[in-house]
């Protein structure tokens, strides 16, 4: 099969370029894209990419494969290869450090803004802050995010204003803490989100939902945040 790989080494290349590789998949098996990258690395050991757990848990190997973001380790070739060809690029929008490795600073800066931790200034109980099963269920579909950045880097609003729009990943987490019955900073959290950029740059085009490798729905979470902001205002 034909693989077209995004290459860029800032120390030697003036500009990024696409490098073509031809390779035979051993036994014609339906391997994951990450395995394919490992095979390519045997041909050219300078190819750079991030990886860690290789089972869709750590979120290190978010890539753009034939135009769609996803995790290389849990994306089988059969899902992305078209007409025997596969183009692999880094996550769109973020600065490239080298080859498929991107600088995630903008992404983490936005994540940091939403204060992704439980805030509760009431005196802690002797053991732990309890939560009813119903309240705990409200966090389903929110806590599972692994911060791979596939969603935020598929979002045009994040491409245009990465310094001001929180992005789908950050907003999903923002709602995760807004929805948490143990968190007492709802007012402060909402006040930080009502400017024209942080939440309201979302136009609901749902690219985030389309690419999320964990099957989460940031657009719905953003809708909940909007409703909370509205209820707080009227």
């Amino acid at each position, binding site marked *: 099969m034909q693989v077209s790989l995004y290459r860029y080494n800032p120390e030697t290349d003036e500009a990024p370029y696409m490098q073509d590789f031809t390779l035979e998949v051993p036994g014609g098996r339906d391997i994951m894209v990450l395995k394919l990258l490992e095979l390519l690395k045997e041909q050219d050991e300078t190819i750079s990419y991030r990886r860690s757990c290789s089972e869709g848990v750590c979120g290190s190997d978010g890539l753009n494969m034939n135009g769609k973001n996803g995790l290389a380790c849990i994306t089988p070739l059969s899902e992305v290869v078209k007409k025997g060809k596969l183009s692999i690029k880094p996550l769109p929008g973020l600065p490239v450090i080298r080859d498929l490795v991107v600088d995630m600073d903008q992404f983490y800066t936005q994540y940091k803004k939403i204060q992704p931790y439980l805030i509760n200034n009431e005196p802690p109980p002797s053991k732990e802050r309890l939560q009813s099963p119903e309240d705990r269920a409200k966090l389903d579909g929110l806590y599972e995010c692994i911060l791979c950045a596939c969603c935020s880097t598929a979002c*045009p609003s994040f491409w245009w204003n990465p310094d001001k729009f929180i992005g789908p990943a950050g907003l999903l987490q923002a709602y995760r803490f807004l929805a948490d019955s143990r968190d007492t900073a709802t007012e402060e959290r909402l006040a930080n989100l009502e400017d*024209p950029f942080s939440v*309201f740059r979302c136009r609901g085009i749902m690219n985030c939902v389309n690419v999320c490798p964990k099957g989460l729905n940031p657009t719905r979470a953003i809708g909940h945040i909007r409703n909370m902001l509205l209820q707080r205002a009227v």
Partner: protein
Amino acid sequence: MVTQVTSFSRNGLSDWVVQRVTAVILAVYTLVVVGFLLLGDIGYTEWSTLFDQTWMQIFTLLAILSTCAHAWIGMWTIGTDYIREHYFGSGADGIRFIYQITCIIALAIYLIWSIKILWGN
């Protein structure tokens, strides 16, 4: 640098609500006008009689104000999305400012002109 200084309300929620309320007003106005046109034989007299009525004049002015608010929020958003240094270089802020002023003047002209048509001679 893209800022929110020239935003309609400098508050995302209020822009968002205004955008939706004005959209509903414009939708209802469109239905009323299109419905009237579909009634059948509409000539100058019928059209003029319709717009001589106070309720239609108020409704029309409301629709025009809605257009202005709706358009400004939309155009401001488009400008702050696309007219940025990434595409326009260091002059992006100046270009965006000219773009925003042009939008405001155009909308102001539409508004004043419409009032003149509605209540002028």
